[in-house]
């Protein structure tokens, strides 16, 4: 990936974080609503994730958990995932074998088992939040 491209993504992420920190999706109408919820009346696994992100950014973990517990739990995990990936894949290619700890983290936290666990968790959460 080229450098300007990375810079653009970094800027976009920064802007998104600032917007989500400044505006509350629960009150502002600027944020897109979930199409699945509006079409079916049922919650999707991602419903409330924008409000949860805002709550997390202003430091209200309790509110974040209330809006979307799955997303609240996944945010730190995803940040770790991005960091691990960035460290692993930006260095590789030129240097020889990758860092063993990073590789271990990648395999056990973001490997096949993790993917299936998350898939099951998402589906269970989807069903559960509509039934309960």
């Amino acid at each position, binding site marked *: 990936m080229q450098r300007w491209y990375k810079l653009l993504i970094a800027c976009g992420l920064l802007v998104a974080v600032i917007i989500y920190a400044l505006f509350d999706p629960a009150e502002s109408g600027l944020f897109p609503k979930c199409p699945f919820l509006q079409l079916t009346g049922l919650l999707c696994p991602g419903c409330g994730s*924008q409000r949860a992100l805002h709550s997390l950014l202003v430091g209200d973990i309790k509110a974040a958990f209330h809006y979307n517990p799955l*997303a609240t739990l996944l945010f730190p995990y*995803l940040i770790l995932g991005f960091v691990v990936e960035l460290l692993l894949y930006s260095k590789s290619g030129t240097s020889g074998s990758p860092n063993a700890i990073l*590789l271990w983290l*990648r395999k056990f936290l*973001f*490997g096949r088992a993790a*993917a299936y666990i998350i898939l099951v968790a998402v589906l269970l959460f989807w069903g559960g939040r509509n039934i309960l």
Partner: protein
Amino acid sequence: MDIICGNCSLANPSNAKFCKGCGYELIPPDKNEQSTKTTSTKEQEPKAEVKSEQSATQQSATQQSATQQSATQQSVNGPIDRKHELPPKTYLVHSILATIFCCLPFGIVGIVYAAGVESAFYRGYHDLALQKSRRAKIWTIVAIIVGLIGGFLYLLLILGGAIASKTLLNN
């Protein structure tokens, strides 16, 4: 020696380039992974029994089970394993983001492909892993584009609505 199709698991003749069942491009298992019987004195002693058992069954087994054997053997004490190599990107993080933020269906497909990349890589099918990684990437890009377009259209709609109601009020 048969080649097992990575798509439909059908056994094909060893000279086949494409699967006779589904037309999927056949990828022969990596040669390195097949010959994991290389000696390493350190690790061999405690697992000598296991190893001889494995090599005995390996001879009579088909190629598919042979690869599986060598994969397990590899995880036990394989000297030429891929444990220390970097697998292709799985785009798992991107797919989860897509799932919980905008595009549930694309995200879920992405998660399934991410799992596929990992299992193919650690079974020794490096090319198949690469192929799945590319597919996962495509799904990620589709999810991002759909999300951006959706968000942009929504903003336009909101702004349009706001401007329309303002002009109505003014009139």
